[in-house]
């Protein structure tokens, strides 16, 4: 009998939405899209608005000082969570997408010349494709993609050829469809060997496993709060301090300046330089509390538990006739999610029938159209797990899938 490294029942009780509705609580298997929030996070955000609300970095009155203190403490918690050198390397953004766009505009606009290559991969989310396309159109740079192989992993056989002329490698740590965990340290070393930088899309990795930007030896990391128990509207860009210091502003406005005249302005030091306007104060503070919650359980414990859940998920799906699962086979280096198709039914129909059974999965292309072209399917259904899921949720998924095959066969 497997004993999880933390008390799952207690964790589930921390999430109000998992208690509703009483008759049939939801089997929530869509955390790769957005996670649920524990009471501690919801309460922290509400407490900010009830007791501390004021703008940051402006007032000399007590409320504003308190708000600024908590906002900056959240930044420090993020820095510690990903093992950044300093909290100054942590920029609050809206989400992963905005973080990547920030690098594309600021670093990319300054450093890329016509013919320079940006290397992404076939399994990227649109948020790690489109900003680079826009940048390539502006600068004359060229976009190139690492292909994937038959088992849903990056095909690295020709990586040295692919790296020719590359100035930036931008890859996801974990595929949001295949669940593939990519060898980031290897890619970082390869990128640096040709003088390129590496940006990592951590949207699907940071919520689920220990993250150490120094150990991975990467240059930029982008991730979203809402996939790691925090509210929507707050994300993070981490970058090496020396790189950030040399980058021009992304958005202009209040907070990001030193001096302004009608003719010209000088800009604040990082991270303020990249945080124009009033930031998402309550959300960032709540992200700090989400990080406290996650570290209280332990990221290594969460990763270990999710590995068990992921294996169970793949084992169970293999038992349902007509179900095809995409991505690497059961084993290590695979996240606790599965994208699949059912022979007789379209993914939308699959998700709809599952919904009527109280099972929440996502259906569609999951913002990865180039990947679905490579997989040769227009869309898939996806079940993804997080620390609050249990094998019972997966059992309910399987019961629902058997209903799908019965209904549509």
């Amino acid at each position, binding site marked *: 009998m497997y004993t999880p490294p933390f008390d799952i029942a207690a964790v589930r009780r921390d999430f109000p939405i998992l208690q509703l509705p009483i008759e049939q609580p939801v089997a929530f298997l869509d955390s790769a899209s957005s996670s649920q929030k524990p009471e501690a996070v919801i309460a922290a955000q509400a407490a900010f608005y009830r007791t501390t609300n004021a703008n940051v970095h402006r007032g000399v009155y007590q409320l504003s000082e308190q708000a600024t203190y908590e906002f900056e403490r959240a930044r420090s918690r993020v820095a510690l969570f990903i093992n950044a050198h300093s909290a100054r390397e942590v920029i609050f953004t809206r989400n992963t997408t905005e973080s990547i766009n920030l690098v594309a505009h600021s670093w990319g606009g300054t450093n890329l010349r016509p013919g320079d290559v940006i290397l992404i991969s076939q399994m990227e989310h649109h948020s790690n494709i489109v900003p680079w396309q826009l940048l390539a159109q502006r600068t004359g740079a060229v976009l190139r993609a690492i292909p994937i192989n038959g088992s849903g992993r990056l095909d690295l056989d020709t990586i040295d050829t692919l790296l020719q002329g590359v100035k930036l490698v931008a890859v996801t740590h974990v595929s949001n469809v295949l669940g593939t965990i990519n060898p980031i340290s290897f890619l970082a070393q390869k990128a640096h060997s040709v003088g390129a930088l590496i940006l990592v899309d951590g949207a699907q990795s940071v919520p689920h496993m220990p993250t150490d930007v120094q150990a991975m030896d990467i240059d930029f990391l982008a991730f979203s709060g809402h996939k790691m128990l925090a509210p929507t509207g707050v994300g993070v860009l981490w970058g090496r301090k020396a790189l950030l210091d040399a980058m021009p502003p992304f958005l202009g406005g209040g907070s990001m300046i030193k001096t302004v005249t009608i003719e010209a302005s000088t800009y604040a030091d990082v991270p303020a330089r990249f945080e124009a306007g009033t930031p998402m104060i309550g959300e960032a503070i709540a992200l700090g509390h989400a990080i406290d919650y996650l570290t209280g359980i332990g990221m290594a414990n969460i990763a270990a538990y999710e590995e068990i859940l992921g294996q169970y998920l793949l084992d169970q799906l293999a038992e349902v006739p007509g179900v095809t699962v995409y991505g690497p086979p059961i084993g290590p280096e695979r996240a606790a999610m599965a994208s699949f198709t059912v022979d007789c039914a379209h*993914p939308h129909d699959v998700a709809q029938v599952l919904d009527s059974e109280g099972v929440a999965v996502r259906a569609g292309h999951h913002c990865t159209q180039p990947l*679905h072209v490579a997989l040769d399917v227009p869309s898939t259904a996806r079940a993804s797990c997080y620390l609050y899921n249990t094998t019972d949720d997966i059992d309910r998924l399987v019961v629902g899938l058997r209903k799908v095959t019965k209904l549509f066969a």
Partner: protein
Amino acid sequence: MSDMYRDLILEHHRYPHNYGTLDPHDVSQEEHNPLCGDRIRLDLRIVDGKIAEVAFSGKGCAVSQAAASMLTDELIGMELDAARAYNKADILELIGLPLDKNPVRLKCALLSLKAMKVGLYRYLGQQLDAEELD
């Protein structure tokens, strides 16, 4: 589930009416829903201001395919003015699904209507051009 997948929807999904293509045709319009990859091609043959023949082809979810199948039955023999006026409420009544609070599936249900409208308006535009030349 019983609401969403009534026997009628499943029946039209399994055995679609007027499935195929028309050659020649007066209207052929393909629409697709990038969210889920649903694709509908709708072909019309128009005689004396009426839709004389209809065919649809495509791939997608049960809702998009069944709605297209049911719409083709409706369109046969319909005056072009009536086809122009045919709208979202008509489709929802036709397929009998409560999709008002389900924007994602609403797109599926309306895909064939969109193909019909886009194709028909292009046809009407071409007719105007032809009249100018006369």
